[in-house]
């Protein structure tokens, strides 16, 4: 698994980093810490650079030396591309067991995060956002919503530091990817959480494929001795669920072309729901 943490210098990014550490501790994923600078030359952005260095220390110091898969090994000379057609031999410190990189990019935050995740082949993007209805980065940047809307991979949006005791996964389509199921499995394990699976229907009707999938998922977790509670809900009650029921929970949403939520709600619903949700949200693809 490859995790991309995207952060700035504000407290919500520290919460997101803590979740990244928790994920990395369990999964031993390859991890990139990414900062986005508004400056043309990212090195000149001392605030983001300083924050990233702090995040790097926090991340690497979260393990005892003998347990860390990220302890840097001996330097090794490698050819590194510096521009098109030119490579330079540089001494690269390789991670002992897993890759760990710290990167700064300059430009529009959402665009740079999405580009980095594509280039790096990320399986999961983790980022924080300000608490409250707007779900922004500082300076009113709508980066988190844009990333959630446009990422190719799953996104964990961290709202604040809080315990997660339950994962509330809302199923609104017959097709779900194997990767998304696996992502839920990891979250169940990491948080030691139980799983509530909600099948969304419209006016009491549920597509046969969704119903079948609901049963299959229930069987899948029963086979793996994972506590799961399955129930049905009308899609018109979904916003109410987010506002009233989600407390110490991780809301997990599947995003797909056949999503009932996409058909029922106008464009940009993901961003709206993610903003409304008082707790962290996992958007799966």
């Amino acid at each position, binding site marked *: *698994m*490859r995790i991309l943490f995207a952060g700035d210098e504000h407290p919500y990014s520290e919460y997101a980093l803590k979740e990244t550490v928790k994920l990395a*501790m*369990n*999964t*031993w*994923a390859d991890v990139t810490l990414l900062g986005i600078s508004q400056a043309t030359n990212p090195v000149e952005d001392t605030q983001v650079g300083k924050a990233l260095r702090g995040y790097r220390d926090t991340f690497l110091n979260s393990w005892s030396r003998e*347990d860390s*898969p990220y302890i840097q090994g001996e330097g090794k000379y490698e050819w590194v591309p510096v521009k098109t057609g030119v490579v330079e031999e540089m001494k690269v410190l390789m991670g002992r*067991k897993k890759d760990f990189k710290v990167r700064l990019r300059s430009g529009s935050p959402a665009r740079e995060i999405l580009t980095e995740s594509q280039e790096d*082949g990320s*399986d999961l993007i983790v980022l924080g956002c300000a608490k409250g209805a707007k779900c922004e980065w500082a300076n009113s940047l709508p980066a988190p919503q844009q990333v959630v809307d446009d990422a190719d991979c799953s996104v964990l949006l961290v709202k604040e530091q809080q315990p997660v005791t339950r994962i509330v996964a809302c199923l609104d389509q017959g097709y779900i990817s*194997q*990767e*998304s*199921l*696996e*992502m839920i*499995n*990891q979250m*169940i*394990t990491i948080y030691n959480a139980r799983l509530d699976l909600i099948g969304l229907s419209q006016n009491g009707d549920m597509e046969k494929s969704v119903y079948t999938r609901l049963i299959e998922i229930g069987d899948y977790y029963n*086979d*793996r001795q994972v506590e799961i509670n399955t129930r049905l809900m009308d899609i018109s009650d979904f916003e109410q669920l987010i506002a009233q029921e989600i407390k110490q929970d991780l809301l997990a949403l599947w995003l797909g072309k056949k999503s009932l939520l996409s058909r029922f709600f106008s464009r940009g619903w993901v961003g709206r729901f993610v903003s409304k949700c008082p707790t962290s949200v996992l958007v799966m693809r």
Partner: protein
Amino acid sequence: MNKLKIMVLDDEPIVCKRLKPALEKQGYEVDTFTQSSDAMEQIKNVEYDVIITDLKMKGIDGMQLLTEAKQRSPKTEVIVITGFATMETAKESFHKGVFDFIAKPFKLSEIQEVVSRAEAKIRGE
């Protein structure tokens, strides 16, 4: 040069279905198993160069298979793939001599790259 012989064990058939063609494309000989008891029987008869195994399975789990495989053939490289990863299982896997520990989800290229590294080690490159 002999083809590397690889065993893939995962109780989710879709994982075997994805991995087999991807590894065969790299030129490896691949046997897949969805029942850990069958895989355990197989390693008594066949010596694999690389074993890719899930951890959480009904009956014999991946950790037991890893232990048995390394006891029978210490030079077999074992790669653990797991959907329910914990720090303890990662540490235990490495203590038992696993070549790599990969949490799901992963991209096929990630597995292919790890298998290539295992091959380089086996061939002493």
